[in-house]
């Protein structure tokens, strides 16, 4: 799985994304760092507004103005991509990083056939003939599970059901064979019954092609089933990263712990995060110190004063919590 | 109308107030164009509303006019009477400044009333169409289509023609202004109706509407109360832009010989008369009313534009 010695496919370091507003500059992401290894599936979880989608958008260079990357760096195979010009970045999108959005109903242009959208995308990135592109497109549709792909490729998006459309979307995201696919809540808008199929397709096809996946979701269940590692975001900051099994069985960060408590048992949906009192702070009212401290049962003095940095632990785990500060482990052991 | 308009205060004041007080006010403070436009509108509205108090003379009182003052250029003494007018005098010896103030008053009144008329009509029809649905809705919306495609000038000419048949002698010039209001308003209700219809179609199936019915309240009344706050933004935008349109429409109709009597000229009538003096050299008879109209209509249009963007955060 994760080999510490291989170079990460994607490396995000101290990423800060800011939105200037009339109430001052909001930090949607505040010094977020993580890596994605080639071929791995990184789950990214957090509540709405925690910064998951913005992380995805900043990697692919599509933050809505006036938002901007204020500092930090994003590297793809060691090459900085956050500083690329628009044209160079455009060539990265689709070709090297694919993206799948939440709502398949609105992700497809209603006025073009699936074939038009697929071949256009393929031919944008790969220099092949129209016929060749179409062949590839049909094969891909077939692979993502569209029955009678050769015939249905000339249909318009509205001819497909929601689940089928999301398969088309996946095909579109993968058609130029990217090394990384960012899937931003790919199943939220779908019926529960098809959710797992879609995730399955996405995971399988990426595995086949050796593409890494960054799976953004607020559904811990999906992460548990799919991801190799999981990153937990809270109020624009990284709370914890680690192999998914470890994080689930033994969450380090109190917030993660609360989050894990909300994993639905079996397939039953329950209100998430009921166990954690209070709500995530708004971005313009992030408390001093650890952002989670007002809600944290285990908060102590430093939590209210200084923001904790990510602390590397054994087993490839990182956590941003004063509880794990080596300098303080002793004094807290019994607390 | 009265109980309904008061109603939102009980339910939505917090939301409305917050939206207005914060985002809109901030957007306004940071938009110089909107500020300038508002200032212009305020000055023009002030001058016209208080025209009877601040205007140097009452140009609507023919007995007070001295024909010999006709065509006095701005700031120059009249050759016969020696009187001086800041913006000159028109062909009837009316002080241009006063005439413009009164004319703007008439134009604004016509515009505002026409928009009000269109708004009441549009909201009622839209609400009704959305509530009843079915063939009533299709019929009303089809009429709206026809209305939208049928040019406003023709509709106004038509209303004017028909009204002339009903209005008795001696009342013509008093009623002309109301006919004008109906004529302009009638061509403008469709947009209001569409917005309200859309909103009411969404609302009518909501539980509270059915619940209201159970307790005996009329669903239309309930819907009105709930829909109004929702459509306030778009309605306001449409109303603002319609106001500018109505003022221009009044001027256009006056060019076609339909409008307020020449003894009580509106801005449009002044421009219609003034354009006859473009070549002859009495520029002030055209220029000042035209500039006033331009300033007013442009400002109202700019405000409408700004309002539309400001109320639609997605466009911001």
């Amino acid at each position, binding site marked *: 799985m994760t080999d510490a010695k291989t170079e990460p496919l994607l490396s995000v370091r101290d990423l800060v994304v800011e939105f200037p507003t009339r109430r001052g500059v909001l930090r949607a992401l505040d010094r977020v760092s993580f890596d994605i290894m080639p071929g791995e599936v990184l789950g990214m979880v957090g509540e709405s507004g925690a910064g998951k989608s913005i992380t995805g958008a900043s990697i692919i260079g599509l933050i809505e103005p006036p938002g901007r990357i204020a500092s930090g760096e994003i590297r793809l195979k060691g090459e900085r991509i956050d500083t690329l010009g628009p044209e160079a970045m455009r060539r990265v999108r689709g070709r090297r990083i694919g993206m799948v959005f939440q709502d398949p109903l609105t992700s497809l242009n209603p006025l073009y056939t699936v074939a038009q959208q697929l071949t256009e995308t393929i031919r944008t990135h790969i220099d092949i003939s129209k016929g060749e592109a179409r062949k590839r497109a049909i094969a891909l549709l077939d692979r993502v599970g569209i029955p009678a792909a050769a015939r249905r490729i000339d249909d318009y998006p509205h001819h497909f059901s929601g689940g089928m459309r999301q398969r088309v979307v996946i095909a579109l995201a993968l058609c130029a064979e990217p090394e990384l696919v960012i899937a931003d809540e790919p199943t939220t808008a779908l019926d529960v019954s098809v959710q797992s199929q879609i995730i399955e397709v996405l995971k399988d096809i990426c595995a086949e092609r050796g593409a890494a996946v960054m799976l953004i979701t607020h559904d811990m269940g999906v992460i548990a089933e799919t991801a190799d590692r999981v990153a937990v975001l809270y109020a624009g900051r990284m709370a914890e990263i680690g192999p998914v099994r470890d994080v689930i069985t033994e969450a380090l960060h109190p917030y993660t712990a609360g989050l894990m408590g909300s994993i639905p048992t079996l397939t039953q949906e329950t209100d998430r995060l009921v166990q954690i009192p209070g709500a995530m702070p708004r971005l313009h009212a992030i408390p001093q110190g650890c952002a989670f401290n007002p809600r944290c049962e285990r908060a102590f003095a430093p939590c209210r004063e200084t923001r904790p940095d990510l602390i590397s632990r054994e087993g490839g785990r990182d956590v941003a919590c004063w509880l794990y500060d080596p300098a303080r482990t002793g004094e807290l052991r019994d607390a | 109308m009265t109980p309904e308009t008061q109603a939102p205060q009980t339910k939505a004041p917090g939301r409305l107030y917050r939206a207005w007080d914060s985002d809109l006010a901030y957007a306004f403070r940071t938009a110089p164009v909107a500020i300038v436009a508002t200032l212009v509108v305020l000055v023009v509205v002030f001058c016209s509303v208080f025209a009877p108090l601040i205007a140097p003379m009452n140009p609507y*009182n*023919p*007995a*007070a*006019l001295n*024909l*010999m003052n*006709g*065509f006095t250029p701005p700031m120059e003494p009249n050759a*016969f009477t020696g009187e001086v007018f800041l913006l000159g005098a028109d*062909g*009837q*010896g009316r002080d241009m400044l006063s005439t413009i103030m009164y004319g703007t008053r008439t134009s604004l009144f016509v515009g505002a009333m026409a928009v009000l008329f269109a708004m009441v009509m549009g909201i009622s029809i839209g609400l009704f169409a959305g509530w009843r649905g079915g063939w009533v809705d299709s019929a009303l919306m089809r009429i709206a289509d026809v209305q939208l495609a049928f040019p406003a000038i023709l509709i106004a000419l038509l209303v004017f023609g028909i009204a*002339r048949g009903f209005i008795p*002698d*001696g009342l*013509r*010039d*008093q009623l002309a202004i109301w006919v004008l209001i109906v004529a302009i308003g009638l061509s403008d209700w469709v947009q209001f109706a569409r917005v309200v219809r859309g909103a009411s179609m969404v609302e009518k199936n909501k539980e509270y509407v059915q619940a209201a019915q159970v307790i005996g309240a009329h669903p239309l009344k309930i819907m009105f109360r709930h829909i109004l706050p929702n459509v306030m933004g778009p309605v306001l935008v449409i109303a603002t832009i319609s106001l500018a349109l109505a003022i221009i429409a009044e001027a256009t109709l006056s060019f076609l*010989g339909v409008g307020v*009597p*020449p*003894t009580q000229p509106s801005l449009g009538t002044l421009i219609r008369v003034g*354009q*006859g*003096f*473009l*070549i*002859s*050299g*009495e520029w002030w008879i055209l220029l000042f009313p035209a500039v006033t109209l331009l300033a007013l209509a442009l400002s109202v249009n700019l405000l409408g534009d700004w309002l539309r963007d400001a109320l639609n955060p997605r466009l911001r």
Partner: protein
Amino acid sequence: MTKLSRALSLSASALALALAAGTASAETIRWARVADALTLDPHSQNEGPTLTLLRHIYSTLVSRNADGTLEPSLATSWEIHPDDPSIWVLTLREGVTFQDGSAFTAEDVVFSYERVLHESSGFRAIHADVEGAEAIDDYTVHVKMSGPSPLYPNNLTNFFIVDKDWAEANDVVAPQNFAAGEENFAVRNTNGTGPYKLVSRDPEVRTVMEAFDGFWGDAPAATEVIYQPIPEAATRIAALLSGEVDFVQDVPVQDIARLEQTDGVKVVTGPENRNLFFSYDMTSEKLRSSNVDDNPFSHPEIREAMALTLDRDAIQKVVMRGQSQPSAAPLPPFVNGWTEEMNAYDAPDVARATELVKSVYPDGFSVQLDCPNDRYLNDEAICQAVVGMMGRIGIDVSLNAQSRSLHFPLIEKWETDFYLLGWGVPTFDSAYIFNFLVHTREDSYGAYNGGKYSNAEVDAKIEEIATMTDLEARDAVIGEIWDQVMEDRVFLNVHNQLLAYAVKDGLNIEVHPENQPTMWTVTFD
């Protein structure tokens, strides 16, 4: 230049609007006025622009000079028959041909009489006293009147002669009948004896005529006439200033000064045979639009007060910019029966007028004034000024200014209390005014007597002058009638209109008292 003009006439149906004045041929006149001729049928519409245009294609028996006097045209002379005072003997010009080449003879005159007397003719009233016409020989026609009609030749100036054979061949023996729903050939086709031939016509857009080389009179200097109606005053003047037309007939008074100062353009002015007056209902018990219970206009004091507050000089100076002749009498000086004294009017005396009004109505009264806004020079502005003048003496007038098509029916249907009317006198005789404006409304009399004026004595005199042959005695009766009309203040006259024509330099044209300029009399420098 000749080459160009030939090219122009060759492609006449698609004539280029030469943009620069300099490129127009000196022999072409581009003529713009407010309205187009309604038809080319010579006997259908008795209306100014129609008559003006037709005059260029068709000739009349008798024509009128720019100074208002009669002169021979197709008739070289006209006399009352020595034996029968009710017969007019017309001697016709010889050697005249129609534009299709056929000869003009007495037969054509007789036929034209039949046609002009047809019930679909617009000129029946003018020839109402004609019982019939008879060809005595090829060049003599007897016109039988119902009684002695000493001034009848005045009625011949708008009577166009058509070719009998042509009319019969094209089935246009009668003028357009609207109810029939079919178009008459004569509406768009012509065959006259006039100085110009029709080349092309696009109604309300452009009518092109070229000189008829078989014309019986002098060959016109202007060999081609392009006639364009331009209803908007500003556009019309702009067309002249930009050099797109050479002659603008209807010039707004306010533009005269500017045009006079413009290089390459000049303005000619002259009196029109038309006066403008207010009249009122002085007979009804109660007015339609007044706030008092009786009829204010029935009081002589009120009528006097109105005369006293009307400031004609101010209207002349400001509204008309000098382009009018203020006058108390509702007839222009051209008209038989006019005297110098009739023009005199009192200086305005607002104080006295106010007293007069107060003596009847201490609080004043209100009334509606009906006024056309597209018929006379500055009609609406005149009415507006009068509203102000009336307001000063306690008469609260509300103004109803509207299009002529709405205004004139009010007068005809007696649906107005107080109105503005302009009156032209094509016969140049007072009887025309009396017949239409003064005589009690009955039969063919009083169609425009909108004030319901009725005076049996006056009516009798009006009927009497119609057949009087002793012109001096007749003039005396006319004088008596005028005295009574002026005393009763039937009309509140404002002024006689002056006409202004604007032409480009190098083109000489005279103002015609009936506003019917003739292009064949135009000369070039």
